[in-house]
């Protein structure tokens, strides 16, 4: 269906269902319960899940298929964000032109960077892309300040021209990013008993674009073009000896991947119209690599899972402070309580990087194929014990 094989279609359907019902799935705990701390179903985080999902899907087209490890994808993310914000400043607050421009500009960027970087492969390619990304970051921070507004970040203001829109709303506020009048930040809260679910316009717009990107990525994976890219990964020399020039293929993959990143950057700006130079820093590039490896490089759904995993940690674990930990273990006697809090302390709050790092190590060591491999192992085991459902399986990641 839709040109997809049966299994791919099932997978696509699954992702679609997950995306549509995310507000329910991510808010499993009643609002007033102690576990509400772990709810992730608020608009900002859900938007981040799908937007970074797009980024990781795009990265995976390059890294998963051709094996070229780009360490500079954050540059495209940042360029996409800046283009989108400029579109909001100059043209209108509609997200469509912003997204289009961010994809075009990041695509052009990718052609230039790719043309130079792809002359080398392996570690040299990674270093070249890293260098380009850091160069963009430093330019955005200093020389290009008139375009990027430096450290403060590019924001929309009341006196922007906005040729097709209005500079300020009737009541003197800054207009809101919208899709033909549908405001990105608008959302509906539905209360069901003790549960509260938030349905955000911005999230669903981003989710639909994510599904389209996911669909495109499946088609690329299954196409002859995708096969060529895999051939490059397995043995590039053999390709050359058979008389095929691999470079146009790698460049095409690089540009597609860069445009995915630009799309993600543009969407970030659509949800929150600000672009900061930090988006281009090397840590941001590293994060994409982590997402893809964590989820499972070269698989279709892996990068999306990895993106969700990392964003969940960044936003939920980092907010658990000592006060919260104390309230968890307050039933213990005083001395032991402080001891337990002392043990948990380095792993939560600002120590979330440590927890993430440990998990990353565990996954790379025990599940080289990422979260997807973990899922496959569980599925295999369950199939073996067909019918005898004795073992309660846990995700190795946790």
């Amino acid at each position, binding site marked *: 269906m839709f040109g997809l094989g049966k299994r791919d279609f099932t*997978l696509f359907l699954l992702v679609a269902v997950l995306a549509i019902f995310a507000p329910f799935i991510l808010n499993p705990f009643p609002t007033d319960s102690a576990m509400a*701390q772990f709810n992730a179903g608020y608009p900002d985080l859900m938007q981040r899940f799908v937007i970074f999902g797009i980024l990781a899907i795009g990265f995976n087209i390059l890294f998963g298929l051709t094996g070229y490890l780009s360490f500079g994808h954050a540059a495209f993310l940042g360029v996409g964000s800046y283009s989108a914000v400029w579109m909001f400043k100059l043209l209108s607050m509609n997200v469509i032109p912003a997204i289009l421009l961010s994809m075009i500009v990041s695509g052009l960027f990718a052609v230039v960077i790719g043309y130079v970087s792809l002359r080398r492969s392996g570690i040299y390619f990674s270093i070249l892309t890293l260098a380009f990304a850091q160069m963009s970051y430093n330019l955005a921070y200093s020389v290009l300040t008139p375009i990027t507004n430096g450290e403060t970040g590019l924001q929309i203001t009341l*006196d922007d021209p906005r040729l097709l829109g209005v500079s300020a709303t009737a009541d003197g506020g800054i207009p809101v990013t919208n899709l033909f009048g549908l405001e990105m930040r608008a959302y509906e809260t539905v209360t069901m008993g003790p549960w509260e679910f938030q349905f955000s316009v911005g999230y669903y717009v981003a989710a639909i674009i994510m599904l389209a990107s996911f669909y495109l990525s499946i088609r690329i994976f299954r196409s002859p073009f995708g096969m060529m890219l895999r051939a490059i990964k397995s043995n590039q020399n053999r390709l050359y000896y058979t008389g095929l020039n691999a470079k146009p293929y790698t460049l095409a993959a690089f540009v597609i991947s860069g445009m995915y990143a630009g799309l993600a950057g543009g969407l970030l700006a659509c949800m929150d119209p600000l672009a900061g130079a930090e988006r281009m820093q090397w840590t941001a590039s590293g994060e994409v690599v982590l997402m893809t490896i964590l989820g499972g490089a070269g698989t279709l759904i892996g990068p999306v899972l990895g993106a969700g995993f990392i964003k969940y940690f960044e936003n939920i674990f980092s907010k658990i402070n000592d006060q919260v930990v104390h309230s968890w273990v307050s*039933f213990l006697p005083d001395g032991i309580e402080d001891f337990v809090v002392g043990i948990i302390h380095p792993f939560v709050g600002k120590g979330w990087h440590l927890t993430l790092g440990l998990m990353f190590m565990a996954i790379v060591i025990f599940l080289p194929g990422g979260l997807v491999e973990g899922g496959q192992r569980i599925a295999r085991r369950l199939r073996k014990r067909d019918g005898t459902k004795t073992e309660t399986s846990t995700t190795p990641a946790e």
Partner: protein
Amino acid sequence: MSKSTLSRRGLLKTGALGTAGLAVPTIFTASSARAFTNAPSGGSVTLGFNVPQTGPYADEGADELRAYELAVEHLNGGGDGGMLNTFSSKALNGVGINGHKVAYVTGDTQTKSDAARASAKSMIEKDGAIMITGGSSSGVAVAVQGLCQEAGVIFMAGLTHSNDTTGKDKKANGFRHFFNAYMSGAALAPVLAKQYGTDRKAYHLTADYTWGWTQEESIMAATEALGWETIEAVKTPLAQTDFSSYIAPVLNSGADVLILNHYGGNMVNSLTNAVQFGLREKVVNGKQFEIVVPLFSRLMARGAGESVKGILGSTNWHWSLQDEGSKAFVQSFGTKYGFPPSQAAHTCYVQTLLYADAVQRAGSFDPCAVVEALEGYEFDGLGNGPTLYRAEDHQCFKDVLVVRGKENPTSEFDLLEVVEITPRAQVEYAPDHPMFSGGALGSCNPGA
């Protein structure tokens, strides 16, 4: 290819279940997870404290968080009440705000605009924070202020010294108690003239972002009005840690004053470098070479150690002030944490009290009512003498301190001495002053 058994749903469920073991049984205290509404229902109201917990300003952030915890304690009737007792407004009565117990959530800005906005967004959307406050960088303050305006909550700025925060980037929902670069210039200039004369040649090193730019502009204007000459102004990257290559050219430039428009770790490093190069022993143009640090803080003075002795600068507040408000604050902060508060802690504590008081006086958490209550509000007893929250730009006007690194500190906290308390009239400026023009408050946004 992937099997579909491991879904995001499964992953998150198991993730949450895995941690459930830790969390049960629990007593639910904070985070009334009401999404984005302005009227808190139920018994508590949530404030969002968004401070740098990692990165170059982490010291300031930690101190800000201490001040916030103290303010919440006082608002809820705990502790000795601190400045509530000396505050000129007696609306607050120690049973929370408007009868709601005060709860809070914290977040890490990482001193990055993006991270700060994400953190503030999650406080507003997930934890139902009605007000966001904190931050130790003007870049972050401007970014978060913009977000709060869009989201329809009040932003009470923490430590931010750039003219732009209440200048070209001012917002109706944002308020700043801290002083700004223009005020530093206006307060410092007369003291500089008195101490170093009116015939000086200045060389600026400036942190390359909104705060550095506006401070350089302000100090340059103030000193040139005295008759000083500006030899050169050099921008340095914020991430710079070694300033030797920037200090060396100063030696042969013919300048006899070095002005360091640096803050936090930047200032500690640049000042140390300058002293190592022997700048302070030099005699240029027949005059003793001097170094000026326009924005000074005790945390920085501690970082720079010996080098700060005799260096002039300005500060918003210092714990050695002897008015009733400052004494009460130092007393309760010291009792709780064992050391005196920094200026960052002071401004954050005061901002929380001012917000709570405005809500109490307005009788409502509605941001527009709060804006109205704060605009043009005159108060006293919070450590800076009589203060005005000006309606035109939401900037506080109060006395500014000119301080000097102490020659003989008696303790590790007694590092600065107050040279002069510049009266409020001397640091005031018109709302349409060229250094502050170009922006508009817009109208207050109560959100959805």
